[in-house]
């Protein structure tokens, strides 16, 4: 129990530090940076520049977890998984900021080896020194959530113990949740009977945001999946936007992500649930959004 308390405390501390930082930051510091461009590396670099540089997130010696969506056995052009080059750009940025190690993984739905390979993420991330591992069922730890729906749920140990977590979802449609963005991507770091969460997906996801708090969320809208998500498989459903959205507040990133689909974030249940619980903000009108075109 001591260990669990320690983990919770450390997560709260990290969360607290993040909030504190936001309050202290100067006026120009935007809540969201939206970058459109063709070179993913420079998109990531300039986005971080406006957020105070990658070094304000990643400290020397940090153990970083990068959590892309690798859920499906699909190649990158189908936009079912996170763009592999976005993942590798982040891996590179983390190491440049002095990270000790960068771990990349996802709790896949399809066969994990196939997903890791076909998504291109394993090869790309390993090229830049990331440790890409398959989910090991014995590494899930029951975490006390005390949410409205979820009282406790198994969460992947590496996420709980990481110094920093970078959430890298891809923007897609989804049957029951309507859209899958940053918050929905958290389902890839939890274990247990995940399929049961669908019965109250909105509150379940909102409850997860109580304990899983990524340092930063990078929404991949380089290609988005506009129909038949989250699996896709037809290039007709893929839209090329060449955009990424970066922000400290995962809920704000998701709220912005809705605009790509012409959906009001008020219609997305889990975003509203998070807003209500105060784990993030979805009132885009009151957020400082920096748009860059490269």
């Amino acid at each position, binding site marked *: 129990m001591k260990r669990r308390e320690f983990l919770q405390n450390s997560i709260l501390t990290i969360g607290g530090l993040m909030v504190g930082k936001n309050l202290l930051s100067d006026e120009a510091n935007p809540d969201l940076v939206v970058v459109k461009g063709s070179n993913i590396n420079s998109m990531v670099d300039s986005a971080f520049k406006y957020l105070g540089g990658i070094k304000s997130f990643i400290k020397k010696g940090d153990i970083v977890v990068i959590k892309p969506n690798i859920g*499906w*056995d699909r190649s990158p052009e189908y936009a079912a998984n996170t763009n592999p080059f976005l993942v590798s750009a982040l891996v590179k940025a983390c190491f440049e900021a002095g990270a000790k*190690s960068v771990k990349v993984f996802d709790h896949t*739905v*399809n*066969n*994990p*080896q*196939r997903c*890791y*390979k*076909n998504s291109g993420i394993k090869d790309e991330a390993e090229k830049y020194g990331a*440790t890409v*591992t*398959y989910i*090991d069922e*014995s*590494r899930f730890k029951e975490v006390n959530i005390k949410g409205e729906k979820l009282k406790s749920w198994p969460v992947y140990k590496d996420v709980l113990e990481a110094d920093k977590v970078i959430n890298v979802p891809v923007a897609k449609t*989804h*049957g*029951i949740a309507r859209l899958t963005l940053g918050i929905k991507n958290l389902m890839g770091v939890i274990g247990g*009977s995940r*399929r*049961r969460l*669908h*019965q*109250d*997906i909105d509150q379940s996801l909102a409850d997860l945001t109580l304990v899983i708090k990524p340092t930063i969320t990078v929404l991949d809208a380089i290609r988005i999946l506009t129909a*038949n998500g*989250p*699996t*896709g*498989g*037809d290039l007709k*459903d893929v839209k090329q936007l060449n955009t990424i959205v970066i922000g400290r507040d995962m809920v704000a990133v998701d709220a912005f992500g809705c605009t790509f689909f012409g959906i009001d974030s008020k219609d997305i249940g889990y975003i509203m649930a998070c807003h209500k619980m105060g784990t993030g903000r979805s009132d885009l009108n009151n957020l400082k959004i920096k748009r860059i075109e490269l």
Partner: protein
Amino acid sequence: MRRYRIISQAIFLVLLLSLFIFTRSSTNNNIFTKATYFLYFDPYIAISYTLASKKIITVLLLCITTIVLTAILGRIFCGWVCPLGTLNDLIGLLNRSKSEVIKKNHLRYKYYILLFSLGLALTGINISGFIDPLSIIIRSFTIIIYPLLNLTFHSFYEIFTYLFSDSELPPRIYTFLRDYIIENHRVYFFQSILIGTIFIVILFANLIMKRFWCKYMCPLGALLGIIGRYSILKKEIGECRDCNLCQMECSGGAISISKSDEIPSECILCMNCTNICPDEAISFRISGKSGKGAIDLGKRNTLISISSSILFYSLFRSSITSSSNFSSARLIRPPGAIREDLFVRSCIKCGLCMKVCINNCIQPTLFEAGFEGMWTPYIVPRINYCEYNCNLCSQVCPTDAIRKITVEEKHRIKIGTAQIDKNRCLPYRDGIGCLVCEEVCPVPDKAIKREKTGVQINNETRYVLVPRVVSSLCIGCGVCEKHCPVNDSPAIYVTSAGESRSKENQNYLE
């Protein structure tokens, strides 16, 4: 010469093991190599297949190599190559009894088994897979040995992580084994106890009699014996003191009574006799002289074994599963499987499709496909589903019972259709959200559509999204069944109805 025989046995055993282990692909559809190659050289399988299906597969003509080799050298395949024979020799080392009494008559049984099975094959029932030594060894490795290896490996790893729970990374040896030798997940098979028991019985029969299987039961040995009796390589015996040492050491039962009553068809060229002979009087030479012939099978017994196959034909076919109008709901064959009647004739139950399946969803049947179809592959989606972009099982099938298909072809092949049980489906039953089946459906134009429907709950109408299967789009992969949150009996499940390979098993007009 005995030494060379042992080296050759070791090489072929290792070869089979490595081909077997590398019959896998974890990340894409390219198999490095496959154990199927071994089966191509098996004339018994080739002949049974050809008789039963009235077709010839070009690669199976490779078995002519074995036939020619046997015609020249005799049953060298049994003594020098056959991996089951090698395992028999290894277990036989435990058998210390010196004087084994071989009844010459018992050596005939394997010929009767051969004749019986070939007779059955003529009637269209191919039982070669049950009794062929290569099929037995590959099947047993797949169904029992390999899963045990996996289990041991994962258990060790669990103990390791328990002891060193703070380790950042799995050790390198673990990742190596996992990526190249062992599966990333546990592997389970139905029938493992049955198939494992048969394997153990065959191996431990060596304690009663060395190479019990090879001497009395093996139909492949019998076939090669029939050819091998005419071989050019012949044993020659020089000055002999009748010490009978050679008789005691003989692996095949060729020197069953005395050296003068030798049966060439039973000699497997183990070279124990040349090795043991104190006078070095025994040698093998190429010679044109006609051999002494084989065991006398007896006209009556021969006739009985062939004709009894007719009787057994009726017995095998008495099962309702052999009726073309009957389709077993849960008999979901792997994609690429040919028409059911041809499938059962072709499949030799080697189990390689089960070995190579990345999701462990292909399982051996018991009686789902009738007695003749025992241990043929079928998909059990609740264990796991058929991976959308995978066609590995079709690549390893030795007899094209699962024909070669490309991944693009596979995407169009329907192996069954998902059915929804509205009495169990959560949205229909309780008016709550779910739609996991819709989420995981891999078909680009999803075969499961979501529809808003009013559900009566306590006299109020609740509007919820419910799943609906579009039969024409569904390919029956079973990922919905695998992930359905309704436990034990899932609310969505695949049945074989609508499978592309069958004309009869269709629900719709068209």
